[in-house]
């Protein structure tokens, strides 16, 4: 584990970080902290994720507030900072005519590695991301999934302490997305490289990240360990099968449950139950289903999701 990844270390912190473009507030007085591991930077398109990454890299001075990354000020120590940070932008930045290994080696050299070491690490990084056999192929002949992996390889080739990945699963199919997320998790867990993963897909952030920073229109929605922000919530979810005979079973179950004072939110054939303990809710739900002659498709403890966070923020 590198120094920065020591337990309790804060890799990234911002204080009232604000970025305005004219009258548009892209980042609104953000106070965030990111720790070692995989941090998900999540939000819809236009939430300010890329703007925040640019500010953390020192590419654009903030309108006000401050940031510290790996103990360095991006404004005054940007060059030293960027030598320690790997970055993979969302945009497809690969020159088609270059071989993958030459591209990764070149970026490793630009990030300060000696030529011979850059050559070795370029090859190693491409093996790491599963492109060892493809390393001499030109980038223009690679698939979208392979090109995303090459971007990841160049970001980690110089052995950075921190890697910023801007939408690394963009353009990938579900299988490729799963592979990429697994890879990102491995890089963090097995090689002690901390990762900030920017994404607008909540489920992929939930799948791989230890911490999350959630943004909505430049405002901070949530910041903390994902285990505290999502996971077990209150109540249960009861999903019923929409059967024809007997008719109206879902309505009957809903009505029965409401009659016993249980809080019910209904969406189609799914009932979200609250207002009592889980055991009691389960018993009441079972009884109501039996009385109505309904059939259960799913009965489970309710999970708090990132979507809930954004919904709560919106209200």
């Amino acid at each position, binding site marked *: 584990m590198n120094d920065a990844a020591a337990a309790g270390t804060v890799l990234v912190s911002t204080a009232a970080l604000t970025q305005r473009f004219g009258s548009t507030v892209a980042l609104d007085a953000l106070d965030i902290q990111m720790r070692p591991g995989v941090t998900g930077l999540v939000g819809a398109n236009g939430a300010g994720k890329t703007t925040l990454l640019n500010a953390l890299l020192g590419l654009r001075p903030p309108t006000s507030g401050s940031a510290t990354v790996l103990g360095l000020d991006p404004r005054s120590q940007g*060059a030293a900072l960027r030598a320690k940070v790997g970055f993979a932008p969302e945009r497809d*930045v690969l020159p088609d005519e270059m071989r993958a290994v030459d591209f990764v080696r070149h970026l490793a050299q*630009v990030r*300060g590695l*000696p030529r011979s070491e850059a050559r070795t690490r370029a*090859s190693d990084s491409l093996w790491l991301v599963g492109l060892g056999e493809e390393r001499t192929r030109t980038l223009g002949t690679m698939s979208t999934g392979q090109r995303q992996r090459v971007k990841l390889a160049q970001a980690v080739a110089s052995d950075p302490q921190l890697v910023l990945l801007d939408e690394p699963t963009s353009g990938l199919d579900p299988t490729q997305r799963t592979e990429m997320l697994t890879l990102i998790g491995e890089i963090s867990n097995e090689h002690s490289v901390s990762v900030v993963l920017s994404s607008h897909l909540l489920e992929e952030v939930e799948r791989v990240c230890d911490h999350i920073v959630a943004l909505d229109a430049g405002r901070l929605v949530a910041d903390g360990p994902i285990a505290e922000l999502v996971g077990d919530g209150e109540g249960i979810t009861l999903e019923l099968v929409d059967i024809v005979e007997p008719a109206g079973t879902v309505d009957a179950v809903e009505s029965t449950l409401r009659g016993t004072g249980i809080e019910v939110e209904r969406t189609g054939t799914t009932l979200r139950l609250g207002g009592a303990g889980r055991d009691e809710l389960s018993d009441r739900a079972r009884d109501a289903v039996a009385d109505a002659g309904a059939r259960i498709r799913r009965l489970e403890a309710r999970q708090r999701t990132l979507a809930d966070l954004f919904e709560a923020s919106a209200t």
Partner: protein
Amino acid sequence: MNDATGTTDVRGQATEADDAARILDQRYRPYAGVRHGLAGAMRALVGSSVRFTLGFGRPARHKFLPWLAVVVALVPAIVFVGIATVLDIDLISENILPEYHQYYGFIELALFFFCGIVVPEILVADRRNGMLSLYLSTPLRLWSYLASKAAAVTATLAVITVGPLLFLLVAFTVEGSGPDGLGDWLTVLVRILGSGIAIAATITAASLAISSLTDRRAFAVIGVILLLLGSQLVTGVLVEVAEMDPRIYAFNLGEIGDALKDRIFGVGPPSPLGEDDGSPGLRISELSTLFVVAANAAWVVAGAAVVWWRYRRIEAG
């Protein structure tokens, strides 16, 4: 090496197919060695840009034009050396072959060709494919990125402006018709290097300025060619036909660079007609050396200013 799921060779790669097989040694490891920082980043970018410009590591079609320009610049020198070797007389002293500074007349076509066709790609490509944003996420900043690119173009152009003359100097020296004595030899060497780099720097600044204004390589090529040839045509007409002030030649990239080269070699420019016929075209020789140097410096500064202005706008966007 064996593991539970199959055998692996010494590099840790599976040698027997197995659904559960994994590469246990992924080879990626921490690095605690030296890091070269900004200087290393600039060196890497200059090196890769020079290789890119000359077509190394690129398909054959990208090698053809730059090397054609180099060949066009070198062929006359090779012919001159061949003639000198066969005839076995001091052809320069006998005024049979051009002097060193006169060789630029043979290079000019290759130089313009190289600047027009090859140089624009060096800036345009990074903006078009997004590499610029990736470079700026490294220790490089805008100024160091642009300085590296300018250094790469100047170095590559110097292959054309300096290379053939160095070849001539060495070949004539070996053949026995080079400069007399070490002092003269070093003087010629310094003049070759100085004039070659000065001309390369001036044309580099102008070419990069044009290239910075568009993301389309074709437009950049047309712009550079128009600047190089158009400035010759317009200033030539104004001075020689309209008999205007010869200081207008300051806007003629070819003539003002040529004049600087002549000053460095300590001679005036040759008459376009081969004799002093009193035409206004000769009056560039009347311009002071200070004016000639200042005009060339102005091209470099103006070109750099345009590039800087343009890239600041791109960065802000």
